């Protein structure tokens, strides 16, 4: 019965090599044909510098500056199109007054000919303009994407921990989109609609000044006020709808994820009522938007017709006054009146469009400001201009009087000095928040110390190029981050040029190859596919394999075993023996079984390094470490862990 569960919309993406589902069968062929035509762009090679290029501060004007002639050309084309489009209503007046009423069919044919010709030219010009502006916009957006993303890569870790991921994400998606909308349609439309409004008013004036003034004084302000009202109210209302549906969905998502708890704690009735309340709020929000948009759409139509009524009535009295004989050559004519009514709808369009544009302009402007702030944020860890590459790192690490504080708050590390000889492994133990992780992050130069110096192979890390430092350093954090892709791609991440044999060797080294071989797809198993979903321990082992593959000279394990179950932990510990061989290693662990594997153990607390030495030396010291060890032994008495 559940056979259809996975056939969402006809064909799951992976079956035909498409990234996701949802293609109706009737257009699948065209879609595949299009994808076949798509270039690979594999020869695309961008360079990346850790130092930001010396660019002027980001702003709409200097961003567009290199393209000012193209922008100007685009605006010219817009002006031409708008003028051509207004030929129509004017020609209607000519047709009525000069052809139909005087009964002259030749004039009528001429009118038609000119009209068709103008349409033809307008179509050509506007097509060319759309293509021209669109391509330019896409080029700009592409460049902006690269620029913002490159800056992301430059920024230091503290930036990513302080900002919410969703916010940063929106810089690259919705902000760039807002700017792209502004560039591709906003600016062009702004000019187009303004010109169109001016032209229309000009034509109407030429028909009749009084009638035009009535239109401008009575109808235009009403329309303007209505549109502005609607925009401001509906903006909030739709925001509210979006928030409400987000609540409904997150409630649903949480209920589904935690359904086993819902069932075992008998929360069904409670949750049903809660969900119904959020759904009800969502419905009410929807009803409100329905109310205002119904009011607005009916309202604009009403203003349209009401204006026509006013024009017909006033126009009638004007005709009575200035041209009672209906002379087609008179000061005001029936043709002009008809053309006038025709132009009413066209007159309102630019007004509401301009209000829309104002909103678009505002969000585009906000996007510019946000992007400028982002691009102006300097990385807190900056590469020196004369930084050197070290290609053969030995891994001798010295910390000299290192102090560190996040922001300007209390110091996490105070005056720490430490020497880790090349090839030696050290583990940091001690209470949470004592700065063990910070110490490791300073050595990896994710942060710079507030004072003091860190030397690797007797060179200050600040003088080493970031690229060469990180290339020879491997970090395995607490939560192993796996990218969307296969197991193989995830391991290869640390060294893209690695061969398949290298990868298999890395898996063997950490002892995960058996597990991978058991998977139906082996190394090609997607890491996030359900069913083959990896346990926390397995994910951590993959992260270890990844670190192993990069052949780091210095390996940093930041609580790499704290979130895994005991079985995986012992596996990881065995992998560590292979990993630690011949390299400098820093191990941060709260489990003693892991910590004990290192050559030296350092107990770190809020004062700094409290005890340091080998396992035996620290036991003999009978201090904090000995105490910890005692507790642990009692807990694990009789187990065969050690």
């Amino acid at each position, binding site marked *: 019965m559940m056979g259809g569960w996975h056939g969402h919309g006809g064909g*799951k993406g992976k079956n035909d090599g498409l990234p996701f589902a949802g293609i109706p069968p009737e257009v699948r062929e065209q879609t595949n044909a299009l994808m076949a035509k798509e270039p690979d762009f594999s020869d695309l090679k961008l360079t990346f510098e850790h130092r930001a290029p010396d660019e002027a501060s980001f702003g709409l004007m200097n961003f567009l500056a290199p393209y000012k002639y193209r922008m100007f050309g685009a605006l010219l084309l817009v002006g031409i199109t708008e003028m051509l489009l207004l030929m129509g209503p004017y020609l209607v007046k000519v047709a009525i007054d000069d052809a139909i009423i005087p009964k002259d069919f030749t004039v009528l044919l001429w009118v038609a000919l000119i009209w068709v010709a103008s349409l033809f030219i307008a179509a050509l010009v506007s097509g060319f303009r759309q293509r021209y502006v669109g391509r330019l916009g896409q080029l700009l957006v592409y460049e902006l994407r690269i620029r913002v993303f490159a800056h992301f890569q430059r920024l230091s870790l503290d930036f990513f921990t302080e900002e919410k*991921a969703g916010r940063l994400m929106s810089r690259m998606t919705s902000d760039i989109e807002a700017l792209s909308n502004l560039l591709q349609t906003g600016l062009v439309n702004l000019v187009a609609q303004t010109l169109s409004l001016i032209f229309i008013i000009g034509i109407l004036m030429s028909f009749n000044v009084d009638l035009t003034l009535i239109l401008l004084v009575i109808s235009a302000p009403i329309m303007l006020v209505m549109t502005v009202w609607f925009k401001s109210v509906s903006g909030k209302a*739709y925001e509210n709808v979006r928030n409400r549906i987000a609540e409904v969905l997150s409630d649903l998502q949480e209920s589904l994820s935690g359904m086993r708890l819902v*069932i075992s704690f*008998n929360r069904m009735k409670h949750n049903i009522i809660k969900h119904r309340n959020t759904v009800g709020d969502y*419905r009410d929000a929807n009803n409100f938007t*329905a109310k205002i948009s119904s009011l607005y*759409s009916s309202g604009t139509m009403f203003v349209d017709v009401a204006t026509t009524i006013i024009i017909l*009535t006033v126009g009638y009295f004007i005709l009575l006054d200035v041209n009672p004989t209906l002379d087609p050559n008179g000061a005001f004519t029936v043709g002009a009146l*008809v053309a006038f009514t025709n132009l009413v709808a066209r007159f309102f369009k630019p007004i509401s469009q301009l209000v829309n544009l104002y909103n678009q302009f505002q969000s585009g402007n906000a996007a510019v400001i946000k992007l400028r702030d982002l691009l102006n944020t300097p990385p807190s860890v900056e590469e020196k201009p004369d930084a050197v590459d070290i290609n053969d790192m030995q891994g001798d690490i010295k910390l000299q009087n290192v102090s560190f504080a996040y922001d300007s708050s209390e110091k996490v590390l105070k005056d720490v000095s430490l020497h880790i000889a090349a090839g030696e492994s050290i583990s940091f133990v001690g209470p949470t928040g004592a700065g063990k992780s910070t110490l490791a992050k300073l050595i990896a130069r994710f942060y710079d110390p507030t004072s003091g110096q860190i030397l690797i192979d007797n060179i200050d890390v600040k003088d080493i190029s970031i690229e060469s430092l990180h290339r020879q350093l491997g970090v395995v954090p607490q939560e192993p981050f796996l990218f969307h892709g296969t197991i193989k791609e995830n391991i290869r991440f640390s060294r893209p040029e690695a061969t398949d044999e290298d990868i298999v060797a890395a898996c063997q080294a950490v002892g995960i190859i058996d597990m991978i071989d058991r998977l139906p797809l082996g190394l090609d198993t997607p890491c996030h596919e359900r069913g083959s979903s990896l346990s926390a321990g397995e994910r951590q082992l993959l992260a270890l394999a990844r670190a192993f593959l990069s052949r780091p000279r210095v390996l940093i394990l930041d609580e790499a075993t704290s979130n895994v179950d005991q079985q995986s932990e012992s596996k990881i510990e065995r992998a560590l023996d292979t990993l630690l061989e011949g390299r400098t290693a820093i191990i941060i662990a709260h489990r003693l079984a892991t910590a004990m594997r290192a050559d030296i153990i350092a107990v770190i607390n809020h004062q700094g390094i409290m005890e340091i030495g080998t396992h035996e030396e620290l036991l003999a010291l009978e201090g904090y470490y000995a105490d910890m060890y005692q507790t642990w032994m009692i807990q694990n008495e009789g187990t065969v862990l050690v």
Partner: protein
Amino acid sequence: MSTTYSGAEPVTNTAEQPNFEPVNVTPRFDNPRANVDPDQSKNWFMRLVPILLVNKWPFTIGISLTIFTMLLSVALPAIIGEIINVLPAAVTEGEQEYFLTLIAGLGVLSLFRFVFGFLSNYQLSRVSNQLEADLRSTIYNHLVTLSFSFYDRIQTGQVISRANSDIKAIQMFLMMAPMMLTTIMSFVFAAAYMLSVNVTLTLAALITTPIVYMISIKLRKIMFPLSWLTQAHQADVAVIVDENINGQRIVKSFAQEKNQLNLLAKAAKKLQWVQVRSIDVSSIYNPVIENITVIGQVLVWVYGGWLVIQGEVELGSLVAFNMYIMMIQMPFRFLGMLLQMEQRAKASAGRVFEILDEKPEIVDRPGTVALLHPEGHLQFSNVNFAYGDEPILQDLNFSIAAGETVAIVGRTGSGKSTIARLLSRFYEAETGTITIDNVDIRDLGLKNLHYHVGQVLDEPFLFSISIRDNIAYGRPEASMDEIIAAAKAAQAHKFITHTAKGYDTVVGERGYTLSGGQRQRLGIARALLVNPPVLVLDDATSAIDVKVESAIHDALVNLMAHRTTILIAHRLSTISLAERVILLDEGKVLATGTHQELLAQVPRYSEILSQQDLSEVEEATETDIEDESDGEYRGRIAEQIRLKGKDTTEGDPS
């Protein structure tokens, strides 16, 4: 409806019935008044009829108003045409009266159109919003009745998309269909007017309409792959950005900045490529479509103008004609859209019904009894259970005395966790019986059973609500003192008070701001607050620090004195808490006795204890967003992109 959760339960013992189902929230909206038709042989629309029927009056009113509005809209151009027709006479011959009457009539009509246009639109939207809300509640009500085996099978993302975009598709169809149908009807009236004026002129006016229609269809065919690929590439870019933000530490650690930049550049270039192609296509088609409609007007003016010169048609009718040309474009476009929406709604309804047709596998038997204060004597007799073809428990027999603390030990896959799940009837034993105080658990109400059997899993799921609400999950009405007491017993109070807002701290998305050990402690506190007479701790302290674990054990020893406790554990420190150990091997009880007895007498016991290389992975017990496949992930991001786009256009009625 039989499949809908009713909330009522059969109770045999009505005296001092405790509230098995805690509720601490006030309903502000009514439960849906109808469910979809359970008859699966009916077509999708017929199955929705019961829901439509309870709304029949609001719906009828909405449709009537819409038709009335349509008639008014169709009448307007005809009157304007007539006004222009009589205008010359009114000017030259002073026949003001008829002219002004027409003007006044037009004014009244437009005022009516305004009022009814507003009312009809609003009314239809309200009805469809109500239907949408009812469908959402109905699905949710149904989802909570389904069993564990359903949630083992499904992907959360799938259900959410059914409960969201599929319902939206149905709602859109139900709202738009009447509106579109009346618009299509307006075509008939407009065409009738035009034909009454002049047949050939009508044909001339309509000639461009089918051309526009055909071009639109062709355009759609060409555009679909382009816009689909655009979305796919937008999602690709978003995926890369998302990973580089969340995995920035890994990118930096392995100095992969340049490679990632090139990865993005490639994706962005592909996006640019497909968008440029879309622009090229639309820059040809858009101007053509826009201007072809105007060609129809030119035709009307030339041919119509000639007819006016011949005296066969009046000038005002020509003006009206032009207005109708604009009006007629709409129904033609809607016709295609309506068919498309119907297809979508049908497919969506099918997917929604698939959930609603799912039957709960474990339900209360008729005539259940309720235990009020069970002692907690447990008995498994000849219990067999298999996941699919794989037998897990084979003829299992054991009993646990009331108040006893028992550890179940065995290798991974030996069926330890299954015992816990069968005990709560999350799954049904295939044969054999499980009893609590000598009552078969199948004779108990499910809620009664769950009320008395508490379970703490090794990877406790926390909701993104405050810590306080998480602890009080099983007893939302618990007082703050009780919550703190439970937290203290679970050794969680201290770290809770150190969080930013203490007990009011909202647990970060999926609980990941807390460490594994902290989450387990909250899970234990949550179970302790309910204070069930039977408690199962399924590897519940596996990620907790040694020092803290021993403190929790002290608290548990106190608490265990009053209840039956089952410990499922690997750690010796945990096992040593139990009075008795049940050694499980290959779905059977191999031996039982104290830890020392088993160590001395059963060689297999120490073998299993030292067995570290447990190759089999315990199956995941939580549905995890991390579990979604690449395809789903990309699909979700694409959906977000789509929704965002839609929302911005929704605000724009023009």
